[in-house]
């Protein structure tokens, strides 16, 4: 498995998309942080990271990054007819799927963490201490993990449709936009109540994936704890249900991807 993962990473050598993503992860948070410091937040590092990871970069960019990375990794094998070489090694399709999804997860986690580091650097340079740094960094890693899981249904759709790269990338962008719309819809809904904690949870919007991440982030980033105190529930979410949901998505979507590929002949 380690060899497969090494190979998947090696295949990304000289890929302009990777450079683009790295630049986006480093540069996008800087203006976002500077603008946010002027208003809309209390100016603390925690609020800035919360804004970036759960409202701006998280829902919009992470599905695009994860999705495009998956499109690149899966379509390249098809477009360049390398599957036959891999199958005759022999490499199993299930192993390939696992290695490619690992790279997608790694890409999302790294993107999220690098974005957080960029926020930390920007806020530090403008005189705002980057605290609590390590719990925010861990939260960023988890945001990357959660959004990578949230991207899996879209990757499954792309594999099932088996269309060209352009259409697949377009789907990833649309998926990212849809995630952002859910966040802003949720925020609009919460804004109509006295406080976030008082927002009724009977709306389906409050259970959409980006809002679940939104409801989880603050508690975890502030304390770095896996479990929040009962006084903050039910609005704030514990880490365990989100992790369980992500693992469920991973198992179901990953399993379906394996089944989908097994039916295809080279």
């Amino acid at each position, binding site marked *: 498995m380690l060899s497969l993962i090494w190979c998947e990473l*090696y295949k990304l050598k000289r890929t302009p998309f990777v450079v683009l993503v790295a630049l986006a992860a480093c540069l996008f948070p800087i203006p976002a942080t500077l603008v946010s410091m002027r208003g809309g937040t209390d100016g603390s590092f925690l609020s800035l990271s919360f804004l970036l990871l759960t409202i701006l970069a998280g829902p919009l960019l992470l599905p695009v990054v994860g999705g495009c990375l998956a499109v690149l990794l899966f379509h390249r094998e098809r477009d360049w007819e390398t599957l*036959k070489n891999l199958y005759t090694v022999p490499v199993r399709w299930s192993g390939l799927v696992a290695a490619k999804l690992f790279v997608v997860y790694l890409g999302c986690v790294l993107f999220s963490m690098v974005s957080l580091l960029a926020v930390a650097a920007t806020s530090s340079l403008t005189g705002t201490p980057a605290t609590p740094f390590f719990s925010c960094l861990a939260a960023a890693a988890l945001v990357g993990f959660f959004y990578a899981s949230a991207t899996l249904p879209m990757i499954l759709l792309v594999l099932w449709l088996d269309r060209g790269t352009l259409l697949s990338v377009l789907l990833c962008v649309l998926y990212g936009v849809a995630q952002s719309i859910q966040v802003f819809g949720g925020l609009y809904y919460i804004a109509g109540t006295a406080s976030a904690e008082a927002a009724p949870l009977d709306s389906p919007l409050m259970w959409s994936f980006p809002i679940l991440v939104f409801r989880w982030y603050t508690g975890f980033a502030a304390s770095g704890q896996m479990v929040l105190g009962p006084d903050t529930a039910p609005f704030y979410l514990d880490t365990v249900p989100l992790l369980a949901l992500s693992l469920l998505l991973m198992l179901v979507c990953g399993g379906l991807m394996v089944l989908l590929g097994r039916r295809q002949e080279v």
Partner: protein
Amino acid sequence: MTTYLIETKDLTKQYGDQTSVNRLNLHLRPGRIYGLLGRNGAGKTTTMKMLLGLTRPTAGEVLLFGMPLRGNERKILPRIGSLIESPGFYPNLTGTENLRIFARLRGIPSADAIREALALVGLPYRDKKVFSQYSLGMKQRLAIALAVMHDPELLILDEPINGLDPIGIAEIRSFLRKLCDEKGKTILLSSHILSEISLLADDVGILHQGVLLEEESLAELEARNGRSIHLSVSDSAQAARLLETELHTTAFRVEDDHSLRILDLGLPIPAIARTMLAGGLDLQDLHLCEDTLEDYFKRVTGGEGIA
């Protein structure tokens, strides 16, 4: 009982209503080069894909190294090097980098294997050119390097000389011949180019519309289809006796009840005619045949020849 490196039993592949390969029984002996000859669309690539487990047969069985392929892929496939259809590599990586990926997956730790494989096909080891910048010939060479990199016992090569220039073709031909003669490798190669098969193969299989029409050694095919005297008489058994007793030759083959093929070209044609007539046989036809392998191919496939 002969142990074949490749043996197929009634191997069949259907795509919908179309039968691509029909009850194929292929036999490949160790240490030989087997040329699978057929026109475009004859089913050569489909056969090779089934031999490698890339395509599931509709019916029949593939035995490799005496074992059924199905269920033994992990044991069998590492012993095979293959090139199927066009070379497939990552366009953003150099030839060396591409091979490094497969070397890693095959568990080849040494960089020497990559260097040697590239040297064998005449490609540089540390080249900065990425695969997308390669010419068709270079791509084909890289694919052959990949096939031989792990020193397999069996090579399955689908149209290995595609895209190569004449010198490249001669180099690869000599390289494959050397692999077989000096290293004892067994090679199954397909081609629609008859001259290539006749220059390289020890055994030949002629595949036409998914059916294996012939499976013979090249020597046997050449003997059967080289120069000969064709004889049509009223009774071929009687003619055979006359050839043995009167003309003292056994170099002939009875083809059916009324025709023979005399392989001994030293016999004068008028003498043959006189002997047959004197023996009371009706002589319908007597002529010198100069069949080439291509003529033979045309005859058995019932179509136009191939390049």
